[in-house]
């Protein structure tokens, strides 16, 4: 097992290198011209303007030289500076990773808290009204985009409940000199900011968890050993919880892993609407503005997060299902 883990870690590093190189190449070889926003509307010869931009960003040098610099910076833990803001990408990421992780974990918590019990109930009470209602609700959540739910929730709460989430709370946690507006790290303000996006994103994911769990539970409930358990006259609770659920959780772990992977930069829409200074929005903006260092830094970050989450998922697998063996 230990050897396997070491081997996996090594491979992970290799994967990261491949990802970094691919993104580096794809960005530079893509037909879309760099930084045209900066050169747009400039006076005089457009070629001259573009050259000026390329020169100031070091994009006029040979590709291999840029690549070598990129890799050696990377080795030193330097992700470069944003083409736009000129601020170090690593610092930007450091500032934004907190809100993203918090939102993602809260969503995962909501998803599991709602998805698992509902999935079990729907499976056990298959083809009853409870099953239909729960599945209907899940389908609804799968069919309505987050931004529609978010706009609805915001308007309904502000028009009819007289409550709206703070819009800059996260930033105000960093004191606004010299007039410290709300107390730094006000957990109550923080919770207010996170409540709606966590709920909206969490329920959507919960619906997926529920669907997979129900399907897997049905599968497991049809197995011989469950019938044996029933035959032994064990209580429903024991059969369902102890015998069936544990075996049905495998795909749920998979889904949770998938969600964890996207949680770092996957909340673009909710971050945009609720003005949460997270990484999803940062990444999307980087793509939109052809900000190479930002896109490179973000892909690398997400990739490293993901390969390690996957490693974790595989380990959990082996622990949950004795049939899975790693050599």
């Amino acid at each position, binding site marked *: 097992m230990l050897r396997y883990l070491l081997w996996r870690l090594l491979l992970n590093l290799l994967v990261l290198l491949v990802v970094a190189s691919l993104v580096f190449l794809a960005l530079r070889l893509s037909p879309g011209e760099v930084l045209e926003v900066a050169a747009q509307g400039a006076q005089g010869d457009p070629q001259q303007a573009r050259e000026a931009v390329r020169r100031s960003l070091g994009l006029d040098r040979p590709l291999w030289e840029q690549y070598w610099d990129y890799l050696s910076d990377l080795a030193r833990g330097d992700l470069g500076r944003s083409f736009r803001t000129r601020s170090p990408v690593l610092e930007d990421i450091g500032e934004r990773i907190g809100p993203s992780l918090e939102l993602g974990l809260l969503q995962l918590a909501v998803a599991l808290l709602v998805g698992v019990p509902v999935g079990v109930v729907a499976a056990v009470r298959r083809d009853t009204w409870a099953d239909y209602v729960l599945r209907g609700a899940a389908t609804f959540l799968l069919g309505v985009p987050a931004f529609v739910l978010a706009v609805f929730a915001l308007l309904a709460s*502000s*028009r009819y409940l007289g409550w709206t*989430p*703070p819009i800059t709370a996260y930033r105000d946690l960093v004191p606004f000199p010299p007039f410290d507006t709300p107390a730094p790290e006000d957990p109550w303000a923080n919770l207010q900011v996170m409540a709606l996006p966590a709920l909206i994103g969490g329920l959507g994911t919960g619906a997926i968890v529920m669907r997979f769990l129900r399907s897997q539970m049905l599968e497991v409930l049809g197995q011989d050993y469950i019938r044996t358990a029933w035959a032994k006259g064990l209580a429903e609770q024991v059969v369902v919880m102890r015998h069936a659920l544990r075996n049905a959780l495998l795909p749920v772990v998979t889904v949770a892993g998938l969600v964890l992977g996207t949680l770092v930069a996957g909340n673009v829409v909710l971050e945009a609407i609720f*003005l949460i200074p997270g990484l999803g929005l940062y990444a999307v*903006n980087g793509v939109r503005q052809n900000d190479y260092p930002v896109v490179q830094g973000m892909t690398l970050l997400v990739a490293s997060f993901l390969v390690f989450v996957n490693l974790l998922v595989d380990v959990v697998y082996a622990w949950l299902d004795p049939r899975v063996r790693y050599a």
Partner: protein
Amino acid sequence: MRSLPRLAGRRLSRRQFLGATAGLAAALAGCGGRQVQEGLPPLASQEQEAPQRGGILRLPGYEAAVLDTLDPHQTQFGPIYSSHSAVFSKVLRYEDPLQGVIAADLALYMPEVIGDPPLEYVVRLRPGVRFQRPSTVLGRPPTPEERAVGGRELTAEDVKFSFERQMNEASPRWPFFYRAYQYQVIDSIQVVDRYTVRFRTKEPVAPFLHFLADTNAFIVARELVDQGDEMNRQEAMIGTGPFIWDRLEVLQQSRFVRNPDWFGWDRPDLQRPYLDGYTSIFAFEDAVIEAAFREKRIDVALYQANPQWVVRLRQEVPGLQTADVGLAAWVNARLRVDRPPFNDLRVRRAVHLATDRQQIIDAIWQGYGRLHGPVSPLVHWALPDEELAALPGYRTGRREREEDVAEARRLYEAAGKPPIEVTFSNIPPGLASYAPQYKRQLEQALGGQVDVRVIAQNDLSEGHRQGTIPFSFAFDNGWIDLDDWLYPYFHSRGTKNSFGLRDPQLDALLEAQRREFDRERRRELGWQVQRYLLERVLARLDMASPVELWVAWPYYRGFRPLVFFGTSYFLADVWLDSRHPSFRGRPEGA
């Protein structure tokens, strides 16, 4: 203390304004820029009441939307130079851009104009104007940039440097000095003494004072410009304006704090700004803006896509300050007049007449828009509204529309029904999503084949410069002065002439308005140009501009809606009235 009913009483004039007729517009023109202050008591009474100090104003804004560069001379993104306008000073400033009222900023008084015709401008600077010291208010140790200039007095050398920097064709950043075309008329800038600068122009230029007051005419310190001729760093944002730029967080917010050392124009005794600072919060979603405004997390709001919530809110909450004003930006089409099919005036006129401008207003801005001639209807240089509204192509009456469409079809058929391709810009989204509808609209009106495609704004600009786009459709920011609206676009040597337009008669007219120093006569000449453009040229088809619906809480005193980007120094006069009943419940943080 002002009571709500009194404010409500003044809302009548808003309704009058809504039904804006030319007569009312003229009446409003008489009271200066006050039309942008509908619902507010007149400035005079405001001054009698001692403004309250403190507090942080919170605005919804686009400051954080995109960042091209932080360099005050190299940005062309309105929200960014709006930020600059709070931080950096200019020689002159616009008191009221709509009426073209210019006042002294760094200058001690309006420049002395010498010669007949005038060729020289002597600027006397205020003594004792000092560059900001951010560390004193931000509680951070001073940056190297601050150590270089913080507290240093601004002198004539800084003024000379700031203009010559943008006139330097040898600069590696030369292509990005977007306003450099204005300074082409400058012959020399001479430092007479520490506080006196003399500008000489090559020829008489009527809008020269405008050039000194226009956006990007910021005065910066030489020390803050790096070897690459850029000052694209947050730390370099040290000017002499009323506010200190704390920081810009892309896609989130931009924060400014009061500059305690500010020189305060002609009234240093007022110790403006009254505010401790202001925050511009980037929110593009109607639901977010509405919710935040209701909770007073932001103090002022305007709609993005759905105007109806603003209308509804105004009914729901009596006493809100309101304003319905245009934005200095407009939808326009550009045609290549030097090659087929648009070298045929009949085809250009056909498109001009066939385009349903009211439909553009309805489809893109939900009916909240204004017809737009060659000059924005907002500025006093524009053709009178009633004249424009009676012109073919602008007439909205049903019968007149039918006539225009019939004429368009006749012209188009006479020209041999050439196929038409329209290239749309992809921003703003509302414009791009109108593209397929415009295609249907033109096809129905002309009875010919019309193709549309949507391309990136960058590609569109590129195409304009290369002359590869025969017919483009875009949304651009507008200008303050007559000259900026016309000369760069339509003069043979104009920097924005993407039409292939060479018309000696037009050139002569454009040069004539440049030489005319009498404002009224210059306006007449401007009208002549505009009429000429609409009758004989039709290279740029000007369509319409949006009308913004604003709401502000009554405690926001000195509220003026944003019409032009680059006027954030207005916020020096703003204060928050915590004694006003509406202030109750305003949360400390947003």
